[in-house]
């Protein structure tokens, strides 16, 4: 895989991939550490763990990407908001969300309206943080999101293979 944002040659590669792998493994370790205490293998436990792993995967991916991208920011914000519900809210609200761009959101509706549902809306639901973006940015974010998802899938698949052999 080609490394992204390869910083310097002296340090080993600090690509998104390696950062994600590192963070994800750490999260897995934390989850499994909790698991050791409760030895039950009930399906509910597994379900809960699955959700936690999923969130960990998304969050570690988002933090590996940084806050450069709108979708990673959205994921991190969502996580902070969920944490804030439990404790103090430390979220710095993004007040400059471009609301004015909403008028462009439906600009291309006619070209994409197929089978009843607008494709742009579907895409917005899929990509985190895509609700308030105009079409142009949405497409850019989707491209980056697809790249990162592919990386994520590959790393997770590799981890799963290794952990299960």
């Amino acid at each position, binding site marked *: 895989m080609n490394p992204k944002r390869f910083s310097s040659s002296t*340090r080993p590669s600090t690509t998104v991939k390696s950062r994600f792998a590192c963070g994800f493994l750490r999260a897995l370790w934390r989850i499994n550490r909790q698991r050791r205490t409760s030895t039950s293998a009930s399906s509910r436990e597994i379900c809960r763990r699955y959700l936690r792993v999923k969130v960990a995967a998304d969050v570690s991916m988002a933090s590996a990407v940084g806050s450069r991208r709108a979708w990673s920011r959205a994921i991190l914000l969502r996580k902070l908001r969920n944490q804030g519900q439990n404790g103090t809210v430390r979220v710095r609200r993004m007040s400059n969300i471009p609301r004015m761009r909403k008028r462009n959101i439906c600009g291309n509706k006619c070209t994409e309206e197929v089978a009843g549902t607008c494709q742009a809306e579907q895409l917005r639901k899929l990509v985190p943080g895509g609700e308030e973006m105009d079409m142009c940015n949405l497409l850019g974010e989707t491209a980056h999101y697809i790249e990162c998802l592919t990386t994520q899938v590959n790393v997770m698949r590799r981890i799963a293979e290794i952990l299960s052999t």
Partner: protein
Amino acid sequence: MEPNPGTLAGSISIRPDQEETGFESLQFREEIQRLIAVPPENASSFTALLELPATQAMELLHSPPSEEGDPAPLSGDSLHGISDDHISYISSFNGNPTFPSNKALVERAAKFSVFASGENSPETSSVPSNSSANLEKVKSEPAETDSNPNSSQPLVSDPTVESKTQRSAKRKEREKKGKGCTKKSKNETSQDAQKLPYVHVRARRGQATDSHSLAERARREKINARMKLLQELVPGCTKISGTALVLDEIINHVQSLQRQVEFLSMRLAAVNPRVDYNLEGLFATESGSLVDSNFPSMVAPLVCPEIPFNGSRQDYQQQWHFDALQQPLWGREEDSHTFITPDNSLLSYDSANSASLHSNQLKMEL
């Protein structure tokens, strides 16, 4: 140039009716004179058009009186040696932007009808290509000389468009149109023209040139560029044509990727590690290589039910083994980060080797 006589006759008959072309014809004359002042290539093509030597062409163009085209005085000037075809053509050209539907003539005439802002070749090449775009529309009608009245109509819109575009000065837009139209301009010869202070924008046929539509167009082109990027990302999308289908593919791809992530996280949650993690020390040092060093210590204690690890004795052995492994690992990592070690040829699965195999595999992966 056979159809000329007929077409010119037709154009002349129509010309008097079009009085609104007075303004444009004035502009025409100015531009034509400007063009003539331009290096000889222009003149040569113009004269080639007329099949006249340069001097006679100059005479021709300077001779017509200030009032709008009236063929009679022109021919009365008796530009001798010039056939009636040329006279009437010139007069019609001077007085009236109705061009015959002959392709070559129309192209060249349209060339001159552009206020060649003496722009650079992109401009002039875009112009003939624009005119060829117009031609294609013109040609769609029957290419008979009788169609001249019909063909004159769309072409009349050109000067009006041109006069509008004269006022707008957007270089970027012009370049875009040049780019968009260069593919049509293969057969055109680009003229060299002098640079003039202001930039002309030639709108494509049927497109307005006010700032809103220009911005719209820029936006649309940005969106199309992003769509192309996405098409390359999504496998199998390059063959699909049409925005809607491509978007469907993209949506499906994103959904499938998200489902894969969910499935893999379920799998990871269900994995049943017999854990003896020894990672605190490793997590302390933060670097990308940590991934490599983490894996051995994580992998070793993890037990697949199939592999007969019995008891914690082996775990300890493995940990010790990995501590030993880590030193050479870190030592090696100073050198480079590309560890395509040949150890993946190891196929034996006893405890120590499996761990090293995993670590090498992971190093390769990452």
